[in-house]
């Protein structure tokens, strides 16, 4: 037990990669065996994170379960891991969604081995971002996750996958350039990459000091670096106007890829805002909070409108991510403007919970799109119609999950969006008011999707013959059940998770 407690984070982080290496040596024709190995292996980190959640003491400030391994001594970077309430929530989300996504991928029959390996490596990459508290290690995991995702889209995606995957890769890599340069600057200035140390030393630098032998003041450098970080994370979130890679990537990605992309990868960007941007640039964030709020509101409103305008079911869900993640940034902007106040804390609580909730509902929505696409081979909303009578169970699940996305009270989405709006209202009243209008369009596009797919006159094409639609099968239901259960639990009783988040937010900011 002692070993478990001292190595808990490294076990969670590396077990997926280890499992991937084990799969490498399995015979590639044994599809079933490989699938089950991957799925069962991904349950181990989930079990460990539940254990982590239980063992975690939310009342302590700072990081817990810290471990530090020597990695790159020559430039003073180490593999330094630790969790606080913020990263804990994200770790739980990641380890929870990955097994579901793997289960959702059981229908993949093309190069199963490579697929499962990439997926498990992807999990390590994502967990690393949440767990690392060494800036260089953070960046490494941040970038390394791109590679499996690129290949998942490029190799298992649909028709336009080449364009989409390259766009995804170049956008994100290009966006991270500023982050990379910023991290290098920290390394040069402080000879360390330890996050806590950098935050402390960086904030001590006087704005009038100059950099090296140049006449550039740190006030300028901090402003430039602030925007470099914001752009890097905003691309990942994604925030309008940096979101254009997202609909393409989502639309072309295989179903499980979309689930992870929307469920977790987007959270990496939001996590970057909370973990790095706010602590490193409190003054700049405060100064530019209006701009951030503007971007957030633009994402909410344009995301909703764009979503409403789609005729492709998957693109509709993809744009809904822009819309929902906008609320996360709105919460961040509000907290940046009035840091330390009660309203700011409420907004941050909402933002973090919204990250978790969107992870659940977006993963569910993308999976459901995948389920129907697999049967009909179309995502065109006008080709469906009245399907509820044919597939009532699927219809029920789709409505339930959409309602979470729509923000129906009693389900999880309502809690987090309410908290964001409640916290932001006194701080950024006008922006929040406009964002509320965005909420109206959220309702509109969700209902549009439901109407087009499930209701209205039945499209006879799907009713009989070779195109007869089959009901959602047991495996697919099993993917949805845990998601729906958690959606409902958080909606009815959010205290168990909000307690952890709230204490973390109070101590962090």
């Amino acid at each position, binding site marked *: 037990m002692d070993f478990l407690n001292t190595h808990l984070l490294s076990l969670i982080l590396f077990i997926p990669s280890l499992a991937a290496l084990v799969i490498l040596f399995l015979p590639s024709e044994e599809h079933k065996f490989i699938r089950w190995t991957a799925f069962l292996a991904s349950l181990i980190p989930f079990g460990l994170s539940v254990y982590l959640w239980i063992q975690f003491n939310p009342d302590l400030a700072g990081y817990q379960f810290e471990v530090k391994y020597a990695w790159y001594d*020559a*430039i003073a970077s180490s593999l330094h891991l630790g969790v606080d309430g913020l990263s804990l929530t994200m770790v739980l989300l990641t380890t929870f969604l990955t097994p579901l996504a793997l289960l959702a991928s059981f229908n993949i029959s093309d190069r199963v081995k490579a697929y499962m390996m990439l997926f498990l490596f992807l999990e390590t990459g994502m967990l690393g971002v949440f767990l690392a508290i060494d800036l260089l290690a953070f960046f490494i995991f941040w970038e390394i996750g791109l590679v499996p995702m690129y290949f998942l889209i490029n*190799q298992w995606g649909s028709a336009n996958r080449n364009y989409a995957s390259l766009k995804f*890769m*170049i956008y994100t*890599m290009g966006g991270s350039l500023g982050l990379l340069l910023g991290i290098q*600057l920290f390394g040069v200035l402080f000879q360390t990459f330890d996050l806590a140390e950098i935050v402390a030393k960086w904030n001590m630098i006087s704005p009038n000091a100059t950099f090296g032998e140049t006449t*550039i003041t740190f006030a300028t450098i901090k402003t430039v670096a602030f925007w470099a970080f914001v752009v890097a994370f905003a691309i990942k979130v994604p925030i309008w106007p940096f979101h254009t890679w997202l609909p393409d990537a989502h639309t072309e990605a295989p179903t499980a890829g979309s689930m992870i992309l929307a469920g977790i990868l987007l959270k990496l960007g939001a996590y970057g805002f909370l973990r790095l941007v706010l602590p490193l640039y409190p003054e700049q964030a405060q100064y530019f909070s209006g701009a951030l709020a503007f971007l957030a509101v633009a994402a909410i409103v344009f995301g909703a409108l764009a979503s409403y305008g789609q005729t492709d079911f998957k693109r509709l869900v993809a744009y809904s991510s822009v819309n929902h993640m906008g609320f996360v940034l709105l919460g961040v902007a509000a907290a940046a403007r009035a840091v330390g106040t009660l309203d700011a804390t409420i907004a941050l609580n909402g933002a973090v919970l919204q990250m978790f909730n969107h992870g659940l509902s977006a993963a569910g929505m993308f999976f459901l799109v995948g389920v129907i696409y697999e049967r009909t081979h179309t995502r065109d909303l006008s080709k469906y119609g009245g399907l509820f009578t044919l597939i009532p169970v699927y219809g029920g699940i789709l409505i339930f999950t959409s309602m979470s996305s729509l923000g129906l009270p009693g389900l999880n989405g309502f809690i987090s969006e309410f908290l964001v709006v409640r916290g932001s209202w006194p701080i950024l009243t006008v922006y929040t008011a406009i964002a509320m209008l965005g909420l109206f369009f959220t309702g509109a596009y969700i209902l549009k999707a439901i109407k087009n797919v499930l209701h209205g006159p039945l499209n006879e094409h799907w009713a009989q013959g070779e195109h007869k639609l089959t009901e959602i099968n047991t495996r697919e239901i099993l993917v949805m059940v845990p998601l729906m259960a958690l959606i409902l639990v958080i909606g009815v009783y959010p205290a168990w998770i909000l307690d952890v988040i709230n204490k973390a937010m109070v101590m962090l900011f």
Partner: protein
Amino acid sequence: MNFPVLSVIVFTPMVAAALILLLPAEKRNEIRALALTAAAFALILSAWVYVQYLVNGMTGYQFVEKYDWLPALGISLIFGVDGISAPLVLLTGIVMFTGVLISWGIDDPHAPTGIQDRPREFFAFLFILASGVFGVFASLDLFMLFFFYEIAVFPMYLLIVIWGWVKTREYAAMKLTLYLFIGSVVALVGALVMYWTAGQTTGVYTFDMRALEAANFSQAFQNAWFLPVFFGFAVLGGIWPFHNWSPDGHVAAPTAVSMFHAGVLMKLGAFAALRVGVMLLPQGAQHWSWLIMTCAAVAVVYGAFIAFVQTDLKYMIGFSSVSHMGLVMLGVSTLNNNGLLGAGVQMFSHGIMTALFFAVTGMIYDRAHTREVPELGGMGKVLPYASIGFIIGGLVSMGMPGFSGFVAEFPIFMGVWSKQWLVAVVASVSIVITAAYIMRIIRGVFFGEMPEKLQGHISPLTALDKIAIVTLCLFMVGIGVFPAMMTPMVQTGVQHILSLLGGA
């Protein structure tokens, strides 16, 4: 005196070349087996040097051997390695071994791969070249360094002219040889001036670089002679604007020679420029570092852009080498700890990576008879090892964290930051350009649909090809995941250079 491991490493290929020439030309497989044995022997010894090299607190040269050669002129055969050259000796061993592996090929008159034309002479020349390369990395005597340098350059001409790509081999071989000879003559003049000047002031005429390091040349002397010496060697390192020979040479050379050429020979230039230019004329280096940095930064960005527009795989890799060697020079030009550390690792990392690129390209060319990216496609299905190897190389190339390229590039950029922030920002653009062309190549060559006329003509790789690919990949991933495998060693070499620079 211990076992003279460095001289054994240096002369093993030479002796093997002589033995190979003694075998009858028809005994092709025996020739190859002998070559492989010699290469494996050299690889094991160089790995032994690498492992036995003492890291803790050491700064000087290790495994030093000294034999009088021409004592009257102060020329001796002195071998020794420091933290910069020990990895390069290992690199040469790896590239030599894998180069022999992939040259074995399939002896099928209808679909030959590897080297099937006069393998005896091919391996003999290749091994003479390898001896020269080992010699440059291990020499501590300036005269001997030149001696081995020329030995390394000359077989290149024959290898390209005889076994090269029919369309351009005469042109490329001539261009390459002339460029490199002119460069080395310029550097040789500088070296002789150093020899006379040091001799006049101290009274001891010697080519021993350990003595020349301590010669304390005057600032004016160093300023005047640094540029010829540095750039004379740096021509071989492919520094802009003297890089022009290099892509042509890469393209025309047969596969194993391209591997040697880009993997090791270009390091030879960068290494000699560092060893003779920076280490013997440190104040000169400080005086001119801005110029090197400018040339290097241009090479990094310009090379990446030119690589981006190529459609011929080999030209693409050739220009990407210019870009990556530019990063080595960029690291050298910082003259600080991080930059030099990164440059040292980058030399190794780039050597492995580009050797792998050329190996895979050669395998594809042997089968498809084209290197034009638009005419290729779908190779991933028939050549899975080649495609995974190329992808890993590509990730190294774009500096993806978790691979050796990142371990090298990150400190280089940190070094540049503390010297001149603008250069760091400009040079970082190359990362995205590199990602773009690597991704484009991977998609175009390995994925998508295979053109109809290639279908059914692509024979699988041999087991030896696979061993070569896996070996190279292991090093790139190993260093990427565990930088401690190499960085402490490079650090010892860097400490020595920094002490010559006046503890800067």
